[in-house]
């Protein structure tokens, strides 16, 4: 049998509202990372991600969104984070689901990741695909999720980081 992989590194379940969810001291022993998030938030907002506490303008993204009858595309350049929402937003009541795949996170190339997200609130919602770039050749040792508007993730939001 081949080598088993897809290992849960850590899970965080919020016991109180928090402005960020951070996974730190990530070992460099895997090929890829996957971060899975299901969350509600204090105010409808957009989820963003940063690596290694880098808040400089080293991020960019392309987003493909379906929200009802129309498809939309947008991009961000030289941003301070990878934005995972375009027209879609989190809900205060309905959990939204994300998965973020970070490829060759410990390698020496710039870091490309993509995310899928889904939310539906019985009359509104969206599905989105996002590809994001972090222009750094540093190994990723920390991943931080935040909300673009500075709001809080609600109690019960769950994030799990896997190594693949």
């Amino acid at each position, binding site marked *: 049998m081949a080598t088993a*992989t897809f290992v849960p*590194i850590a*899970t965080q379940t*919020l016991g109180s509202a928090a402005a960020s969810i951070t996974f730190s001291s990530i070992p460099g022993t895997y*090929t890829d990372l*996957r971060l899975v998030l299901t969350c509600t938030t204090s105010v409808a907002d957009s989820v963003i991600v940063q690596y290694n506490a880098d808040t400089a303008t080293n991020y960019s993204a392309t987003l493909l969104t379906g929200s009802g009858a129309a498809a939309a595309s947008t991009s961000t350049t030289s941003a301070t984070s990878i934005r995972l929402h375009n027209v879609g937003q989190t809900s205060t009541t309905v959990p939204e689901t994300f998965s973020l795949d970070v490829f060759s996170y410990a390698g020496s190339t*710039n870091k490309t990741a993509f995310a*899928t997200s889904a939310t539906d609130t019985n009359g509104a919602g969206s599905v989105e695909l996002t*590809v994001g*770039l972090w222009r750094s050749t540093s190994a990723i040792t920390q991943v931080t999720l935040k909300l673009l508007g500075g709001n809080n993730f609600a109690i019960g939001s769950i994030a799990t980081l896997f190594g693949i």
Partner: protein
Amino acid sequence: MPLLQTKADASAWGYGFLGATTSTGNFFLISKQVLGSTSATVTFSSIPNTYKSLQIRSIARDSGSNSQDIGFAFNFNSDTGNNYTWHRLYTSEGGTITANAGSSQPANYMWGCAGGGLASNIFSASTYDIIDYASTSKNKTLRGIGGTNNNTSSANPFFGISSGLWMSTSAINSITITDYTNNFVTGSTFALYGVS
């Protein structure tokens, strides 16, 4: 930050979000190829039929001068007949959304590979899933998500989702991935996983 739970054994939950087979701890590395020199193709052969699904994960860049190659041509079991069909939905960094398809093709043409015209050291990222690959009674469907970003608002590169059909009921025992127009460069990485 308050934590109520750490290190949950949640592998099934994580993999299941992309719609594939779920079972805790049942994601296995079959083979990983890191290119030490440029190559037009990558082949996984002698794939065991003991899993329920396969997933290929890659970072790749090609040797061409464009910002984006169409990407990856998938062939199964060395079949290069016109037994493949595909659909793609993708967007450019500049905001143009495109959908297209091909039928009776000699390969599944899937997004997407970073081109050599991109800024240095940028590779595309992709995953490809094949459910029930070992079936001897069903045609085989391939689903891919992939592409890259180059910190521009240009007409390319692209990012999107692809599907492919191989019109064969044979169990898949080899997968050949060919760069559509050029060669994969050194450092391109392809890993094949089995999900049981």
